[in-house]
């Protein structure tokens, strides 16, 4: 069986908690470590918030597609929208030392995930791929792509 769940929600912030819950349950039902689940939950929430705020500029009538996939190697989540293309260069967030509201989401996503990448081949909208590698046995922690 392929452990893959796909969910599409309106681009309205009231559905963020639903997407978080699905992320958490996807991990839990597949016996993923709780720390990994919590980090992925946070990354997915920040990424979907950014889609609403930036890609859709607050338009709540669009859709966000979230694909969650678990393999022995990784917990992977793909987030798709049909909004404005993210300017990958500007995806920096604020300097962490500046104390000001905003600019934190991208930092939090990068901290939480091993891979954070926009699919440049997507024609319209954005496809963001978040990956957390799962611990391999025998203490081998070196499992980059």
């Amino acid at each position, binding site marked *: 069986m392929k452990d893959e769940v796909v969910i599409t929600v309106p681009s309205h912030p009231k559905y963020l*908690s639903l997407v978080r819950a699905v992320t958490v349950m996807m991990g839990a039902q597949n016996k993923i470590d709780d720390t990994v689940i*919590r980090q992925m939950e*946070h990354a997915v*929430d920040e990424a979907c918030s950014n889609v609403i705020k930036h890609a859709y500029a607050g338009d709540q009538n669009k859709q966000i597609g979230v694909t969650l996939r678990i393999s022995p190697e990784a917990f992977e989540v793909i987030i798709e929208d049909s909004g404005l293309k993210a300017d990958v260069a500007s995806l920096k967030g604020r300097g962490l*030392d500046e104390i*000001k*509201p*905003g600019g934190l*989401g991208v930092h*939090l996503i990068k901290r939480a995930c091993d891979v954070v990448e926009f699919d440049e081949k997507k024609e319209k909208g954005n496809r963001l791929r978040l990956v957390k590698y799962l611990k391999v046995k025998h203490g081998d922690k070196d499992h980059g792509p």
Partner: protein
Amino acid sequence: MEIKITDHEGVKIISLSGDIDMYTSPEVRKPLLRLIDQRVPVIMIDLTDVAYIDSSGIATFVEGLKGMMSYRGRLKFFGIPERVKEIFNFSKLDRVFDMYGSMEDALKS
């Protein structure tokens, strides 16, 4: 998100419970900014029952802190769950936020 505001001899305590995200943080922002508008000298945020906070919640508290600094008010946090503290630390806000273990500690200081 549930929000309760109580008064302890002029000190206002905002007790939050549930998840603070992009949907619920405007609900937190509203009463916070209202108290700041009234120039309440000490506002305390009780995070004991907060299960989750994201960057929009952090942004709300940073905005509150800045607002209070303008009149030298004090914004204090207490009952901070590990998961929330971790985000505060990562955001380097542990250096600017006044954080306490309990309401008593926060009231005393």
